[in-house]
């Protein structure tokens, strides 16, 4: 593998890792703070992609679609939290698994009824449609760099929100000791709703910005969900920092695995997970 090729693979793996992080961050926060297993998290990714497709074809602009889609998805997240998830924080994990599995079916069919079962493409905005030439015949699309930049910005934003703001302080307090936080006068229900909606928002944004390169198709949430599980297991439940490092690690292993060891590429990530489990059963950054 020459240098240009290596660079492309490296950029791809970072981009994939950052995208996984956007999903896994929400998942791990929802696990860590509310103690809920959310199998339907991948559905939000799919929802995002379909929103990007339908809104951008309606408005003619992916930017408008992403802004509008973010608002819609956060509202949807709040609604779901208030109507369903709120009542499952104290239930058995088993009930949560079933609830969210049922939701996958419901979301999948709603998608099928609303948008059909066809595969769609989303056009890259003109401004970002260029490619940067690396050698005579290799180049790297600007849009992928843009995606990574958006993810990095959101990751920094998330970090600042959690570690530097008053809301973040309440979130951390709520995760550490729910009852005590509530006794101190913090509206924990509001915090939970905020975290949940934030998780949904992040997953949907990931789906929206990924839609131009991944295309939009049914069941696109399932595979990404399982990858996110692997990321969360490796990183340690509840740890956003762990999720970031694990996501980048998974991105590297998956991307380079496909190039260097294509026969076993599908299994490499799981082997990585098995190795981490043997070494640290609670993940790398267990809180």
């Amino acid at each position, binding site marked *: 593998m020459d240098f240009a090729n290596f660079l492309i693979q490296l950029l791809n793996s970072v981009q994939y890792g950052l995208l996984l992080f956007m999903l896994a961050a929400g998942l791990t926060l929802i696990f860590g703070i509310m103690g809920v297993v959310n199998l339907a998290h991948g559905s939000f990714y799919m929802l995002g992609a379909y929103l990007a497709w339908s809104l951008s074809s309606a408005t003619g602009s992916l930017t408008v679609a992403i802004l509008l889609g973010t608002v819609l998805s956060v509202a949807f997240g709040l609604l779901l939290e208030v109507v369903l998830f709120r009542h499952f924080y104290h239930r058995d994990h088993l009930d949560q698994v079933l609830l969210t599995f049922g939701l996958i079916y419901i979301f999948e069919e709603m998608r099928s009824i609303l948008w059909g079962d066809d595969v769609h493409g989303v056009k890259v905005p003109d401004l970002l449609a260029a490619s940067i030439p690396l050698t005579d015949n290799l180049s790297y699309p600007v849009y992928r760099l843009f995606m990574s930049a958006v993810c990095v910005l959101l990751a920094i934003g998330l970090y600042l929100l959690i570690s530097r703001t008053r809301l973040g302080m309440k979130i951390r307090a709520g995760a550490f000791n729910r009852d005590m936080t509530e006794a101190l006068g913090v509206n924990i229900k509001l915090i939970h709703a905020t975290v949940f909606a934030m998780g949904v928002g992040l997953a949907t944004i990931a789906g929206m910005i990924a839609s131009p390169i991944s295309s939009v198709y049914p069941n696109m949430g399932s595979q990404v969900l399982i990858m996110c599980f692997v990321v969360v297991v490796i990183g340690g439940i509840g740890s956003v920092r762990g999720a970031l490092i694990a996501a980048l690690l998974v991105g590297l292993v998956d991307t380079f695995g496909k190039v260097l060891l294509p026969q076993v590429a599908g299994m490499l990530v799981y082997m990585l997970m*098995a190795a981490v489990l043997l070494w640290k059963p609670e993940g790398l950054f267990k809180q």
Partner: protein
Amino acid sequence: MSAKAHLETLPRGLQVALALAFVALAAFPFMASDFYLQMVGKMMILAIFAMSLDLLQGVTGLVSLGHAAFFGLAGYALAFLTPASEPASLWWTLPASVAASALAALVIGFFVVRTHGIYFIMVTMAFAQMVFYLFFDNKVLGGSDGLYINFKPDAGLFDLDNKLVFYYFTLAMLSVVYLFLRRLLFSPFGRALAGIRVNEHRMRAMGFGTFGYKLAAFTLAGGLAGLAGYLWGAQTGFVNPELMGFHMSAHAIMMVILGGMGNFAGAIVGAFAFEFLLDEFKALPSIGSFNAGKHWQLWMGLFIVGIVILAPRGLLGLLERVLRRKDRDA
């Protein structure tokens, strides 16, 4: 969680109902067409699968979201062991296939049973997905299309090609597995597993090596799931990666929940009820331009959400509550 699983000891009324159900199953071929025979056969196979999961989920308190991997593996084992032009003997392919599943469960279990709670759920799912992609991605292993099993296993003494014989063979397997698991539930091993469900720390403090117990349960459950998968492969003559998929695992969890878990009888009831509903939903007619049957996942999803909210103890739990109310009224 109470020390006793719900309905761990079955009330007399339910025992009678189960005995009657067994008689009904035995008599069923005399009044049903081949189509329904096949359908009920499939339900019985899934009931074995659901019972094997109940050993983990209801008895030991381990929620596995990857149990279908072991179900599918044995089906694939049968597909590989059956030559292209002649049947293979039941007497060695059955033990070999079950052993393959049990071995896979032993290896995967070695990694997963050291985790707890949410981790266990996610890790079982991830490993099952690994097995799924191993078969899905490799043409040698059948790829995404799966494999055909051209011949039913040759049993020597009886002819499994005969639908009636196969039906009774499945029924016998179902009964043997049920009786075995009920017996196991009240053995020292079963009591230890139930103890782990109630309080694993205390079990460890009392000197039980819970890792070994959980691994043994995981392996046994994997092997029994393999038995079901073997029968599935033999009945349908076809295996594909979907059998090991995440939906199949989730369906099994649903079957166990639906019937009522921790007593194996519930798993059987749940498997029958779930499969019946699935067929009903898929057969829904079109309303105008809206094809209700094509969107069966919507109804199933709503049904699952409804059950979780309204009847978390399952159908047997519901039935028992009704029976008890009658007792009180009388």
